[in-house]
């Protein structure tokens, strides 16, 4: 399934602060169950189909873990 917007999270860099999850207006993101090497539950994309590509998650991430992509026309 190809979505219009795509959010990629560098989960090894993520510190599990949750600011992206808190900022997402569409509840696309959530904490993953597993741990990363740093011992955090990193953020993950849970409902990619709802992503509107607003970039709020990117803007709020203090650790530059997020890339927002969009389908080329």
């Amino acid at each position, binding site marked *: 399934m190809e979505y219009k917007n795509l959010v990629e999270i560098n989960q090894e860099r993520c510190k599990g*602060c949750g*600011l992206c999850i*808190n900022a997402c207006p569409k509840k696309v993101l959530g904490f993953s169950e597993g741990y990363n090497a740093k011992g955090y539950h990193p953020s993950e994309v849970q409902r990619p189909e709802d992503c509107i590509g607003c970039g709020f998650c990117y803007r709020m991430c203090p650790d530059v873990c997020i890339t927002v992509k969009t389908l080329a026309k």
Partner: protein
Amino acid sequence: MPYIDKMKGPHALSGKEFTYCPGCHHGIIHRLVAEVIDELGIEGQTMMVAPVGCSVFAYEFFNVDGTVAAHGRAPAVATGIKRAMPDKVVFTYQGDGDLAAIGTAEIIHAANRGEKLTSIFVNNAIYGMTGGQMAPTTLVGMKTTTSPYGRKIENEGQPIHVAEVIKELRGVAYLERTKVDTPQDVIKTKAAIKKAFMAQINGLGFGMVEILSTCPTNWGLSPVESLKWLEENMVPEFPLGVFVDKVGDAK
């Protein structure tokens, strides 16, 4: 897949992982400064001065020449760099202990001289690096490790309003107080940082942005709770807004 990047980490960051605690706003502010450097195309001409504080490593996080000053002295160090290399872009990055306590003289005089510098001032109302002691910007009644019964006006006075002090100095060309606790505020802060850089690039004078910021670790709150605390406690004490703007709006 034919996806294109819409938003990704700026080139002006070195890529090194930040040393900050989870949810600390230092990281957001670093990224914004780097985005501005990218957008202005000044990476090769920019030099930075890191402070002593949690952001002591900041000079390793940017893709620009950098150094770290003695505690509070970044504006004097930046003055030395800028006077030696007037064609370059120089900025300091400082916390509230660094800028508003030990380094008060240096920031005031750099601003007053109209040094063509930009200072990014992170006000998190506490000393982060040394473990949560009282800052000059700590709120009245706020408990810290050195104000364990809460800051008292009779003993420590009231929080210093840095932007309101700096705005009186004639050398200032851009001065704004912002916050980065919502995506909208992040956008506004980036615009403010850009103008604070334009102030020196256009030779107008000193530019500064005071950014209200969280310290979840020493506030004893989660990163998300910290956002709320900042809104409810810091914003009423430190009003947001533009104090000086000689830069004007770009066409």
